[in-house]
């Protein structure tokens, strides 16, 4: 597929790989919107790449995804590519009971969020 003239949303694009993708895609004449949880890091990304559009949003929260969807499709109706780069890595010792309790609690609360909810406990697909 062609990689110019697209409108691209990058979830998790304020640093590392996401930001690098944003930069390259801007260079190729695309409209690029990035999201991130941290306002300061969003501002920093915007400083670095002035043409970048930034939206503060935590895509692991379903309410945020709804708001994000409405806002992006209203402001950028030409949106045609969604890049999902949001992820968190934690060091977890599976033999450590306290940590296991926390991760299973995280899992059970997210299960109540619906059909793919349990997956969302791990990552925001």
């Amino acid at each position, binding site marked *: 597929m062609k990689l110019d003239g697209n409108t691209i949303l990058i979830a998790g694009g304020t640093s590392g790989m996401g930001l*690098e993708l944003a930069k390259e895609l801007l260079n190729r004449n695309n409209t690029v919107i990035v999201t991130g949880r941290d306002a300061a890091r969003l501002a920093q990304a915007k400083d670095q790449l002035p043409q970048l559009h930034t939206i503060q949003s935590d895509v692991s929260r379903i309410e945020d995804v709804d708001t994000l969807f409405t806002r992006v499709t209203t402001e950028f109706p030409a949106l045609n590519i969604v890049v*999902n780069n949001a992820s968190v890595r*934690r060091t977890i010792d599976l033999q450590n009971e306290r940590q296991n309790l926390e991760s299973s609690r995280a899992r059970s609360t997210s299960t109540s969020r619906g059909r793919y909810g349990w997956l969302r406990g791990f990552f925001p697909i």
Partner: protein
Amino acid sequence: MVARFLPHLKRMPGAAVVHVSSVRAFAPLPSSPIHSATMAAINSFSRSLRAQLKETSVKVFELVSPVVDAELPHPQSPEMARVMKLGELVRQFLEGIEKDQFEIRPGQADGPQFMSRVATAVRTAQDLISTRRYAEAIAPLSQAAQLAPTDPAVLYQLGHVCLLARRLPEAATWFRRTIAISPTAARAHFDLGAVLVQTGDEDGALECLRCATVLEPKHAESHGRAGDILRRKNALQDAASYYERAFEAAPGTAYGLLCKGKALVALERVSEAEAYLKEAIARAASDDRTRVEAEYALGDTFLQAGRFDEARASFERLIELAPGDATLHLSLVRIKNITEEDRPIVKRLLDRLDAPGLPERQRMTLHFAAGKAFDDLRDYGSAIEHFDAANRIRRKTRSFDAAEHARRIDELIARFSRDFFLENAALGNDDETPVLVLGMPRSGTTLVERILSSHPRVGGGGERGFWSNNAPAWANVGTRELVARADGLREDYLCLLRSIAPDALRVTDKTTANFLYLGLVHTLFPKARIVHCRRNPVDTCLSIYATQFGQTWGFESDRGDLAAYYRQYLRLMDHWRRVLPSDRLLDVDYEEAVVASEATARRLVAFCGLEWDPACLHPERNPDRIRTASVWQARQPIYDSSVERWRNYEPWLGELRELL
């Protein structure tokens, strides 16, 4: 998120969903199970989504990153250079998208193939390791480490095989990298400690081993190796407690028993150690290093207790077990006078020297051993050849600056004048316990200490190194600092001496280099006695040149350095003789001591202010342990075969001739 955006995307011509995952989808990192599972889930989910959206305009891409930023130990570290640069990675991703390549795996992230390539490489290496082809196993493991640069298990194995192949700097690098990724990897700390011991960084090694003992307290060898280092540092009490913990971690094993034996030796309970060491030998397999170590420790206890026949038998067994250990050959020739009958021992030594790939330190030790043997056999030409060869190797690690040394002696002479002692008289106390036996190495200090400590009221302290540790600034200690530290130093020194022999009236300290610190010693202990051992300068220097010591001074491996050091030593001793009270400093000539031993012994005892005791005539019966290079000589009845030995080496004296 996909679910929410999908209806919109489906209406757009040329739409796409792009997921970013990593190689962890196929090769999980055990310390990050959820992250790795998430990556696997993204991969799985992307494949299903791609299948479901086959008939729509929405394409599903997955960008599989070879390594995750957060896994890298330091963003600026050299490891980063090995990992693909981020910009390059993104360029490849975008190129893949443009080519409609749906699962894009640049560099190392070749999905299942990647995993099997790592696994295959590791298996190949393991096969080689099982047949002890360590050097050959490095290549496949390096390949595995290149494929999985952040997998601690692979990095550790690579380090371990480098250690086995004795490629030490590389091993250290890989262990450090393992620890950077997985700081709690106890065995990586342990092995790094083993590497550092072999590269001479004992402090670094001790730190690593201590970490290992905390992380894995049940691993006996971590405790035991830490004990070994502490013992070499002469921190015997600490060494004993580490050995004790090693024993507690593995009480029924050969290694545990060995450590218990070492603990008892460190605590000077040598006779109790024997049983544990023998038991360790009995339980260890014949190819076990523990057996060698236990046999060695046993031989050493025999040696120090003067049981030379048993020691010799022990060393002979050891040479059979570990023919490559040069120290054994040296120990064996040191504890006997080599005669024509011993030619096979000499031949075995020379054969070892011919072995290809012999490490330099081993070669040095063997040359010292061969030199000693040829000297005994009166083949002085061959002897000096071997001593020269040994010293050529020893010289590589020395550092001696004759001019700088002379300058320091100037400073000492200028500072510690008679006036200095008068002005600082208040800093001294009148304790008469210390007797310092000093002089050049190999000048008879062991003999003098043995004569003195055979007296029932005298304790033998051996080489304690107290002053060299506590007076490092030589002459430069400011008077104010000296005043501040005087009480503490006096107390520490007396405490040390009394711990050696609580009831003795006098305790000897035969650290030869103490002549450098007499200014400080006399200031703090004006009543301390100083016995200065003198010997023919060329005999002394030749003997130093021909001996492998447990310590290094820097001047010992070169005739010119030896001559320079000797002259400065004479100059400083002349100074002390001028400024110290004559009843506190006694010169003892080695040559006189060995021919007129009773006269010397009586003079020594009288100098120390003690009543005469006939035990001082038989220092060889003194049961104290000896830890110096003189261990064998000191057990022989006093002998004079070491007088004027230099004549045997007349053609090869070089700069030493200046000292005649």
